[in-house]
């Protein structure tokens, strides 16, 4: 199956030959959707959940992995964590073939499933950490040090002795993130880490992840629906749809590809007909307030100057583009071409 013997586990450096911590080379995952027609199981429909994806992630990167539901995001994460076996291609995480050496890989990665806590419901939070301590065979000193750090930065001090069932969603998420980091993983996978969290918790979680990445150099790969997560955390974004990698690059580039627009919200003194200033077009009028769309790459300053000169301006604000819309526009472009 795997013909590339020169790159199989043992002989590769932990980081691969070029510093890549995660390396995917034409990775595929094909599911057979079985349809039973008697005893002969020949009637099968093949679904390509992941269709020949290649990318590398270097140590210390923080990457956002986004796409609509069913695009192949979680299938990819499951292959990277060794839960699923790829149907084809080549895959290495820290030099390890995840599907073959699942338990060895487990020592070196941390995983947080946003909607499924791995904490012990009826026990005080700290008990879950003690289990991690022993299950991952973390040396006592490291454990104490890591726990102290997480407790301090994630503000878990008052929660350690509280049964998990009594924690709020945000507290539980912070608890889960700490649990995934006690064994010093080199890679942290986060699946929807801010889903359902209140604003304060979101901010705290994001700050923590930024610090973790900056200070410890932990590589972070996160999937999310909340695009502000990515805006605030990731310099690099990968967009997947229909099992294919549609975009891989900086967030700003995504705007260009998707021809995204920013919005200028203008409050005038009174209701007026739609503003007419060349490069921006009015998309909405509501009483004295008007919404103008203009290309994201273009500066807002000249536009504002022109409006201020010609209209009785009271207030204005600029809204960043809605990336979800950008992505959907991008999909539309790809599918029609």
């Amino acid at each position, binding site marked *: 199956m795997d013909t590339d013997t020169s790159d199989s586990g*043992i*002989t590769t*450096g*932990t*980081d691969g030959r070029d510093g890549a911590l995660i390396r995917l080379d034409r990775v595929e995952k094909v*599911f*057979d959707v079985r349809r039973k027609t008697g005893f002969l199981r020949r009637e099968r429909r093949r679904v390509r959940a992941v269709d020949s994806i290649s990318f590398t992630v270097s*140590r210390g990167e923080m990457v956002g992995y986004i796409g609509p539901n069913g695009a192949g995001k979680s*299938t990819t994460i*499951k292959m990277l*964590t*060794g*839960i*699923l*076996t790829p*149907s084809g291609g080549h895959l290495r995480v*820290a*030099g390890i073939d995840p*599907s073959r050496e*699942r*338990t*060895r890989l*487990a*020592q070196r*990665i941390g*995983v947080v*499933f946003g909607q*499924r806590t*791995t904490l*012990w*419901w*009826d*026990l005080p939070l700290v*008990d879950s950490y003690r*289990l991690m301590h*022993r*299950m*991952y065979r973390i040396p006592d000193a490291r454990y104490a040090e890591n726990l102290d750090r997480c407790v301090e930065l994630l503000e878990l001090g008052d929660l350690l002795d509280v*049964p998990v069932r009594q924690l709020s969603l945000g507290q539980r998420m912070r608890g889960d993130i700490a649990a995934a980091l006690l064994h010093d993983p*080199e890679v942290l996978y986060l699946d929807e880490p801010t889903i359902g969290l209140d604003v304060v918790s979101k901010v705290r979680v994001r700050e923590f992840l930024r610090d973790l990445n900056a200070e410890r*150099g932990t590589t972070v790969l996160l999937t999310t629906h909340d695009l502000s997560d990515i805006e605030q955390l990731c310099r690099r974004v990968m967009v997947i749809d229909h099992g294919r990698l549609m975009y891989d690059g900086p967030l700003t580039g995504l705007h260009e590809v998707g021809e995204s627009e920013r919005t200028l919200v203008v409050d005038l003194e009174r209701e007026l007909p739609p503003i007419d200033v060349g490069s921006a077009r009015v998309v909405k009028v509501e009483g004295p307030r008007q919404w103008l769309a203009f290309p994201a790459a273009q500066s807002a300053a000249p536009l504002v100057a022109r409006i201020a000169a010609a209209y009785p301006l009271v207030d204005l604000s600029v809204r960043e583009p809605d990336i979800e819309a950008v992505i959907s526009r991008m999909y539309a472009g790809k599918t029609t071409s």
Partner: protein
Amino acid sequence: MADRQQQRQRQRQGAPSPGFERVGRSRLMDGLRAYRLIAWMWVRSTMAYRASFAMTLLGNFAGTALDFVAILLMFSRVDELGGYGLGEVAFLYGLSSAAFGLTDLALGSMDRLGGRVRDGTLDTLLVRPAPVLAQVAADRFALRRLGRITQGLLVLGYALTVVDIAWTPVKVLLMPVMLVSGAAIFGAVFVAGGAFQFVAQDASQVQNSFTYGGTTLLQYPPTVFAKELVRGVTFVLPLAFVNWLPALYVLGLPYPLDLPQWVAFLPPLVAAGCCALSGLAWRAGLRSYRSTGS
């Protein structure tokens, strides 16, 4: 950090590759260790509801005792069942119940696997550095299941006081061997049932009919059942080796099928074979889960 990894890497390359047996044994030790850790967490979790624990322990005891009460009620109306007296039936009952109780204590939540596959929580076990089977086996470990073992052993104790057995050293030795082998045979059924749930997530009941059904069957004398059924549980699904065959040797009673006497000593071998087969089934099940993710 990178230094440390390179060092580790060098160590890996330099060390001679460990023999298969050593890897196998360390996986077993890893599994047992993970099992112990997780089981202990569950014990502590249930202790969060102490009163409820006491009640469920009592309930487990009473629930299993109910089967025996039914047998007692039967014997309040008759003196023999299938040619067996109450003491002899109690002997079969105690052995079956105690062996099954041991398995139920160790692997009692295997039937939750299908649910874990369905709701996706199995994935959280797959990212841990421990064998999945050990983690699934320890899931919801419950000391209340000691109730069944206790009840089985009490009935067995009662049987030993009322039944006249011509004890020999071999028979004495056979008793604990029977219990452990029986528990292992039931364990193989549990694990195979778990493996089946990878394929059919809602079919945990099928497993129950072999496990709970099996122990119920073995509580009664083999003479009660049709020959085909007895053949089935002797040669196909070898539950008869849990207690019937060895117990009848101890009791000095004939087995309804024509079998040589030495089959009474086969339980350890049968258990080993069953465990090997169910281990293979488990691996196949897990592999199919990891390739289909469903």
